[in-house]
């Protein structure tokens, strides 16, 4: 199987995150591989391993679009176990919204399928920075592929993918033919950590760099020029400050109700 996993380099949520510049885009210093993409990578590795792994010709390609630093997300993916890495990078991509991002990624996936077709594109359920969840569905629409989103389990057999999804009022089982685009939730598995062997092995794995020209995309189709939305203003919310803290002396439940009554919340 040939699986492409989309991995994003995002600002670490453990630190304060900032928007900057004219387009109010996210600052990408202190960035890491998006935690939610680790679940997609793990799912890909499990599918490849179940089919005999790299030796049997299974490929797990970690694809990241982003500035120079995004290569770190790819390196981490290779350490965890991806077989090869692809870095789509081009100055013109900066500031791309979901629509422009999905356009570039769709072209990159087509490019990667030129020699042998891609069977599956796996992504996380959302990026931990933009949090829109739009890209997987838009990528599927652009590639004309079935999409299965928010999969909490995943099975591939006989050219079909089967997945479970949980909605508020119901759970469902869905089925699609390959190739397909699948986004997975954090319920699907327990992502592994890179081990020493993996870190050494990653040094020998190749990372291919692609530019927009390589994938046949014009710079006017991406970045601010190719985006269909624009952030017009951004304002930092004042951080929440701590209020009253009391220690229970046997009557804290009553004090809690007093507080709710004073706030007119009863």
């Amino acid at each position, binding site marked *: 199987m040939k699986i492409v996993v989309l991995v994003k380099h995002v600002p670490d949520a*453990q630190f304060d995150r900032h928007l900057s510049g004219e387009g109010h885009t996210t600052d990408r210093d202190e960035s890491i591989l998006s935690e939610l993409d680790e679940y997609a990578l793990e799912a890909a590795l499990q599918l490849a391993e179940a089919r005999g792994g790299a030796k049997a010709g299974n490929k797990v390609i970690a694809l990241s679009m982003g500035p120079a630093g995004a290569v770190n997300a790819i390196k981490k993916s290779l350490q965890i176990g991806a077989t090869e890495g692809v870095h789509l990078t081009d100055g013109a991509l900066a500031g791309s919204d979901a629509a422009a991002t999905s356009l570039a990624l769709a072209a990159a996936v087509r490019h990667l399928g030129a020699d042998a077709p891609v069977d599956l594109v796996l992504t996380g359920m959302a990026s931990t920075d933009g949090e829109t969840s739009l890209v997987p569905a838009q990528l599927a629409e652009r590639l004309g592929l079935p999409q299965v989103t928010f999969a909490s389990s995943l099975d591939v057999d006989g050219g079909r993918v089967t997945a479970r999804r949980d909605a508020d009022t119901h759970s469902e089982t869905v089925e699609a033919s390959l190739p397909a685009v699948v986004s997975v939730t954090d319920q699907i598995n327990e992502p592994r950590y890179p081990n020493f062997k993996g870190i050494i092995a990653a040094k020998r794995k190749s990372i291919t760099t692609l530019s927009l020209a390589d994938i046949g995309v014009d710079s006017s189709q991406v970045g601010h020029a190719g985006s269909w939305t624009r952030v017009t203003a951004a304002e930092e919310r004042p951080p929440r400050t701590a209020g009253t803290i009391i220690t229970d002396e046997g009557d*804290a439940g009553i004090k809690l109700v007093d507080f709710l009554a004073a706030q007119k919340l009863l």
Partner: protein
Amino acid sequence: MANVLVFIDNPGQALKKSSLELLTIARSLGETAVAVNGELSDDAAGTLGAYGAASIFRPAAADLDDYLVAPKAAFLAAVADKSGATTVLLENSPEGKEIAARLGIRLSAGVITDVIAVDADGTAHKSVLAGSYTTTAKATTPVTVLSVKANSVDPEPAAAPVTPETVTVDAPADATAAAARITSREQKVASGRPDLTDARIVVAGGRGLDGDFGPVEELADALGAAVGASRAATDAGWISHDAQVGQTGKTVSPQLYISAGISGAIQQKAGMQTAKVIVAVNKDAESPVFEIADFGIVGDLFQVLPQATEEIKKRKG
């Protein structure tokens, strides 16, 4: 010609509050058309008229529900073309966002998710980076697609009700070709409590409950609240995954969020820190949740919660 198109997926017997909110926002933007998938009861149709929907578009095929989102997006794209609407409003559920995503590509339209308010000129307001920024965004395309969070406006019927005309629209023939098919669906048991995403009050429990959600549920019922949970509690199987609040669970913005036995990790805060008032009960004074709590109690939740529940019942008589 309509200015705004509202999508309502399977309205059921009575329209949900979130649908009424979409209709209320739509009226502030111009003449409203509604696209409905699934059954439309007389009551629901009457409500659409009361909320000012001038026309109702329905799909010719009945099987859109057998597939994941793609055919719904195709149907909606056809309706957008036919109605001439320049703004499409959908609910901000995972499915609503996916339909919005595919619709955006079909219409070459900018999509903005997690919207909490829309100005008359189509500028959308939302908060990003786990609630740390409020932003305004605008589509640069002729058509704008917006998914709007529940609890964004108070629903209000139109000054004068209208009688909508009903139009049937064929989804394009290729709509189901590249779609994932739903092969089985299990209904979950309803809890009878308010829906977590639009509840006014949420009482949430974490690992500190040690497997017993009783104290949280009883307090929630005394307050008429929804029950939420941390991932530690849902992962442990103490409560169903739909109760999870946070980065990979639900984002809630209630009037009041009571956090009990939850440490307040960044991924949990991401889902609740836009609550108006936050109350925390935790026996560890160093828990990060106290950094954002308006009222914090350092104490044992098994003492504090039942006492509060009793007191509320007493005061409510």
